[in-house]
């Protein structure tokens, strides 16, 4: 399939996928080497997980970071971080405290070469409604985001729906501030259509979004978590309609990164996650018309 102007999604990996192996059977370099073997160029790290001595990596670590990116031809895409509103027991972070912490991550993301930040906000209820003061500290940080060339993107994650008050609030904020430095990271788990593997988290009664609801959000979307739970041996993801999702991305000339994020069973079985990622990357490669 081809939609003329040549702009189309690119492939990457979210290192979250390797959570069962990082530190015990795989190092940061092992994960980057694994990505390189899949031709997955775009990287998402989790700052609090993958940066040794976070939030102040040593000079030696930084030097090795850039060496590895070059060696494995990896492009830093998305920097996962949190504004932990319940950082201190019994109270929520003030707007100023939230801003100060956000600013530290903005600077570090920029230092490591990232241009998108998955800004995970604290939530106040079961629908994952973000903290009441999110507009205030995000707005304070927008000039910094521009200065350091990063886009702050809360993650739209199940059970949030792609058509919802939360999304409307984010888009209203973007329209009101006219900012290009705040947007969305869409997690494809929001568009699940089939049950998860039977040996994995039992599916509660859940509502998901139709793929049709994705297109209107793409102008605000700077990265996607290509969430998956189960790849078959014939390279089909069994829970989520990847063929339809990728068709929407191609039709809309969306040019960001699809970051494969494995969240299925056996994450601590050495090699299992790598195998799932390879299958997922091959599926995306085919759907994107790269072969």
């Amino acid at each position, binding site marked *: 399939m081809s939609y003329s102007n040549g702009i189309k999604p690119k492939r990457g990996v979210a290192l979250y996928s390797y959570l069962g192996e990082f*530190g015990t059977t795989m*190092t940061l370099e092992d994960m980057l080497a694994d990505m390189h073997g899949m031709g997955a160029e775009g990287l998402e790290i989790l700052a609090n997980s993958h940066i040794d001595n*976070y*939030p102040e990596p040593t000079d030696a670590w930084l030097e090795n970071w850039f060496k590895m990116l070059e060696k494995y031809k990896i492009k830093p895409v998305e920097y996962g971080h*949190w504004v932990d509103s*319940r950082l201190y027991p019994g109270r929520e972070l003030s707007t100023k405290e939230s801003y100060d912490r956000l600013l530290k991550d903005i600077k570090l993301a920029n230092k490591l070469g990232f241009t998108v930040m998955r800004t995970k906000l604290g939530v106040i*209820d079961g629908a994952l409604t973000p903290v009441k003061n999110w507009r205030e500290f995000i707005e304070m940080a927008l000039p910094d985001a521009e200065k350091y060339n990063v886009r702050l993107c809360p993650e739209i994650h199940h059970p949030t729906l792609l058509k919802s008050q939360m999304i409307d609030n984010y888009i209203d904020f973007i329209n009101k501030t006219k900012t290009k430095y705040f947007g969305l990271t869409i997690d494809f788990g929001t568009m699940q259509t089939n049950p998860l593997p039977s040996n994995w988290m039992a599916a509660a009664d859940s509502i998901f979004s139709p793929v049709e609801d994705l297109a209107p959000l793409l102008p605000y979307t700077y990265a996607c978590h290509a969430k998956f739970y189960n790849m078959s041996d014939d390279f089909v993801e069994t829970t989520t309609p990847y063929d339809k999702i990728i068709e929407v991305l191609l039709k809309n000339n969306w040019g960001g990164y699809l970051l494969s994020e494995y969240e299925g069973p056996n994450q*601590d079985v050495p090699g299992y996650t790598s195998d799932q990622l390879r299958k997922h990357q091959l599926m995306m490669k085919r759907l994107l018309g790269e072969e």
Partner: protein
Amino acid sequence: MLEKDCIQSKDFRNVWTGGQKTGFQLSIRLTYYRGVWLSQLRPATVIVDGEKFENDQITWTIGGTVYSQEELKYYGDVHWGLLKPAVLTIKKPGGLATGLHDVEVEFAYSSSYMPPEMDELLSKLTPHKRRLVLVN
């Protein structure tokens, strides 16, 4: 590389002060997928062969600094990373006998991105229990 279990075996030993055994140590790693700020941690309980230790019987050593359990909540700027086990030092006059011990560690941490009623849920999904050999 770290051992897969939260409770690591290699740092399990008695602590000697002035020629006397005053307690024991063990180290734990975070099996959560991200590191945490110390103020997100909740006090630990250690159970050895059914004997329970808690509150000021336990101190945490993280990045070379010793913290009482009570003061962890103030340290929102100190981060405990995934690759650096924390050492728990437990007061027990006379220490532990050499040989096998059934060790259990309970602790929790806060996750602000989860609904408030599920704040500590992720830290309580699996118990941390291990049979360890004490040599020294």
